[in-house]
Each structure stands twice: as C-alpha cells, then as structure tokens.
C-alpha cells in the first residue's frame, strides 16, 4: 500500500488530490455525491472583499476537450465567507484552503486580514493572481514579477498560514514569476489557472461568452499545465501544485513526475462531482501497481534519458 501523504509547506495532506478553486463551490454544494473528507483538500471559490454578481451570461461554452469560462469571480464576499462558511469548515476532516482574488493590492490584504482576525480552521490561502476574467486588474499581478513579489510579501507579513500563489499560464516566463513568489516568501505555487481563449458562433456572429476573452480549461490544456509545472519546478525549491486537465489517476502521476507535490482537479468536477475521489482511487491503484511506497518516488522523478 502506497503512503499517499504529501507535504506543502508546513501542511501535511492525506493525499495529493485537491479540488480546484471555482470548480467545487464552497465545498458543500455536492456533498451527497462524495465525502470531501477523503480528499487531500479543498480550495474554495475565489473570495473578494465585496460580494460579486459576476459577469452577464453566457458564461461558459464547450470547446474540443475543454471549456471556456468567464464567471467573473461571482462570490459571496469575505464577510459572508467568514460568517457562513468558516464555521462549516471546522467540521471537516480535510485541508481547506481559501482562495483570494482582488483587483488591487489593498483588496487582497483586506480580505486576508479579515480572515486572519477570526479564529478558523483554514490551512491557508491560495492567492489568485491569475484570473483572466476581471477587467480591473486581477490579471496584472500574475504577469509581472515585481507586482507578484510585492503582493506575496505583503501577504506573507500578515499570515503564518500556508501561502500559495496561483500562477497564470498567460505569460512569457512563468518560472520567473514563480521565482518572485518564492523569493517573497510564498510557501508554494500552484499552476495553471485557465489559458486565455475565445469562441465565436459563426451563425450568430456573436461571442459564445459575454466577455469575449475568457479562460480555457479541461483536458485540452493538460499539456500546458504539465509544461508549466515542469518549468517551475526546475526553477524553484518550494513545492508546486499542478493544475490543468486532470481527469484520471495517471494524470496525477504525470503531474507528480513533472515536479508537482500535489494536484488540483477542476473541470472534471463539472462532469462528475465525485471526480476527485474517483481520480484518487485510480491514482492509488496506479501507485500500488507500480510498487510505489511513497510519493517522493514520483515527485520530480521524470527520467532524463528519453
């Protein structure tokens, strides 16, 4: 039996499979389908300072082996997150990580400070500096090393909890951004957020998604995610959490070999809200079949002699 434990900063995950922000709500929407306590962890939907309605519909469209979305960070805002959600997380027996988004440095700080001010059982924060859907500037942090560095160190000063910076693939050099986050004190980075994409209905001549530019996810982008994790893990020594197109156990192994210490399942939850557990079972089988005793035997162990 493989020991599936994995460590991100000071946090031990019972297994490397988490669910990705924005693809599993606040963690309670689908509890009749699976026991979230069996997951390595939950990353909750991006929270901003104020509640956000999100973008007008249409917000999603299917593409070849993928989907585009532009939800626009619809969320309940940090106050209701604190009052309605945090107490529920006390009851859970899995790692819960809060994802924070903002359109300015101050907004990120304010959200984090509000949560730090109350007792809670969160393991830490994932900072969404990479959401391509918000006009006001959420995107800017993710593409600039200096801003990433500044944001990371401001947040680092305000929390001892796990601090994960979530990176955008829509940059020339994702490894450099990861290095900035590491230097500024991040415990880990996660990658990738969605890839900028667009889809038009030729018959109506309209964009299939209201905001036109939106974010591509799903199996179509798995190679992009694996490449990002590989490049990042070659450049930093903090753990990397791999995201992008994971739908089966072997995909987890692929990300771990590329250098990830854990992974997040996103789009797959939409087809099957129990996808995370299904993937966990498959990954466990993979490990057993390959006589892997613990995950250090996989993480970053890509063979170099192709």
């Amino acid at each position, binding site marked *: 039996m493989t020991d599936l434990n994995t460590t991100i900063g000071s946090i031990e995950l019972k297994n490397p499979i988490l669910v990705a922000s*924005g*693809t*599993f*709500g606040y963690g309670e*929407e*689908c509890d*009749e*389908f699976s026991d979230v306590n069996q997951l390595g962890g939950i990353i909750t*939907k991006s929270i901003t300072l104020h*509640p956000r*309605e*999100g973008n*007008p*519909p*249409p*917000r*999603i*469209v*299917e593409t*070849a*082996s*993928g*989907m585009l*979305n532009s*939800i626009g960070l*619809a969320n*309940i805002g940090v106050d*209701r997150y604190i009052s309605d959600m945090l107490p529920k997380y006390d009851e859970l027996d899995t790692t819960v990580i809060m994802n924070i988004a903002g359109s300015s440095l101050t907004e990120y700080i304010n959200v984090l400070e509000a949560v730090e001010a109350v007792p809670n059982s969160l393991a830490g924060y994932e900072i969404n500096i990479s959401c391509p859907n918000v006009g006001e500037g959420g995107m800017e942090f993710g593409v600039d090393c200096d801003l990433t560095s500044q944001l990371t160190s401001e947040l680092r000063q305000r929390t001892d909890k796990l601090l994960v910076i979530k990176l955008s693939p829509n940059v020339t050099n994702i490894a450099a951004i990861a290095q900035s986050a590491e230097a500024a004190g991040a415990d880990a980075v996660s990658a990738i957020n969605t890839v900028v994409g667009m889809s038009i209905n030729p018959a109506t001549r309209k964009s299939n998604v209201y905001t036109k530019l939106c974010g591509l996810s*799903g*199996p179509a982008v798995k190679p992009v995610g694996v490449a990002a994790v590989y490049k990042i893990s070659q450049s930093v020594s903090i753990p990397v959490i791999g995201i992008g197109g994971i*739908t089966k156990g072997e995909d987890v192994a692929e990300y771990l070999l590329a250098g990830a210490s854990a992974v997040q399942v996103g*789009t797959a*939850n*939409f*087809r*099957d*809200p*129990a996808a995370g557990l299904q993937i966990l079972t498959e990954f466990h089988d993979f490990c057993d079949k390959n006589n892997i005793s613990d995950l250090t035997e996989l993480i970053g162990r890509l063979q170099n002699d192709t």
Partner: protein
Amino acid sequence: MRRIESGKVLSNHKLAKGMYRMDISLPEISSEVQGPGQFISLTVGEGWQMPLRRPMSIASIENDSISIIYKIFGKGTVWLKERTSGEVIEAIGPLGNKFSLDKINGKEIILVGGGVGVAPILYLHDQLSKDNQDHLLIVGAVTAAEQFLEHSPKTGIHLTTDDGSVGEKGTVMTMLEILADKVENPYIIACGPEPMLAAIYKFTTEKGIEGQFAVESYMACGTGLCQGCVIETTKNISKEHTYHQKYSLVCSDGPVYDINAIRI
C-alpha cells in the same frame, strides 16, 4: 437527493422530424424525482471530446425509467441519437426545481410547449390529467412533420404549425391569445425556445397574467458548482442556492421561475 447513475437505454426512436425519444432505466434517479420541470444531465461522447453533460428535461417517468424527448441540435444530440437499446448512458439527477402547482390557486392552467420545450410540459400534462385537473395544452412547431401529438381541441390539446399543415396555422401565440381570452382566469406554464418565451413574457406582462417558465441555459455542471448557468432576475428572488441579487442559478434554483421573476 441527486444521484449519479449509469442506466441502460431501453429504447431510442424518432418521434417527429429531428425529434427523438429515449427511455433510460434509472431506478435510483427516478425514485428521487419530485415532479415536472426537473431534469437530468447526460454524459455524451467518448472520452473528453465533449466535457460537458447535456441537460434534458424529464418527459415522463414509468416504473424505474425516465424518458427524455430531444431535438438534434449539435454533436451531443447526434451522439444520443446513435445510441441503441442496451447501451449504457451516464446520468446525473434529478436536477433543478419543479413547477409549483400550489401557486395556481384555482386558476385555469394553459400549458404551452414549443419545440423540445414540450418535454417538461408533457410530463406536467400527464400529471394534471392523472389528477383530473382541467387544463389546456398548446404545442407549437414549424410544420406537421415536427408534431407528434394529435390535434384534439375537444380534449384541450391544441397543435399549431407555422404553415398550418396540422392544427391551427400560426405560432403558439396565435392560439394562446385566443385561449387566454376564452378562459376566466388563465395561468400560463410554458417551456420552449427563447423567442417563444419572450413573446409570452410580453403578452402576460401586458395582460397581467401570471405563470411559470421552465428556461434553458448553458450549463457546465448542473449541480451548483460552476456558477455558469445564470439568468438575470427582476427582483432578489433569493432562493436557496442564489447568493446573488442580480442572477439566479438555473440549474439549482431553476429551471422553473415565475414569469415575472426573470428577464428573458
């Protein structure tokens, strides 16, 4: 409670031009169904070529099986058409809410179905008929080839076709205006393509008639996870799953809404 279930296709056949009916054995899901308006969502295609499930209204329930009535629209419905009896299909459901009959308060129900919007309307029609509750049914299509019911005004079933090839010539609006005028206190329950709902919306708003719509919207999950399926609301209807003022999740708070609660 919602469930994920793999079910055998019991039958899959053409009803009318471009319209098919599939019966799927889904004992677990069907035992949870609360009523007309609810839907299931089906995995289509091999692998992840089509990552998103296809939502389909429940058209009827019999023993342990659920029927859907679907229209060939794109890749996913073409794939559905090609399934043969015995094949297994993966479904999630029951999803969404149902038509709420307790709002009707003795008014006279007019059901209106256009295109594939007939599915939930037929389910409701059957239920009302079983309960011996009087109601009128209008089903519209472009031409006779797309109709699969029998025009039978005596029993309250009114077909319309744009070309008059069966039933009344015209759209469902032609018929609805006539019938709504005839009955004392009409209450309209409709499902169909957006232009049809928009026309009914305009009509009912002008006449101050109440009613309910089952609407469609592009869905990634159907389960409240993705926030993708929103419809604009006219007032804060603050349903269980809706933390928005402006938008409502069609998959969880809908697909059935009071006509005046949403913007079409």
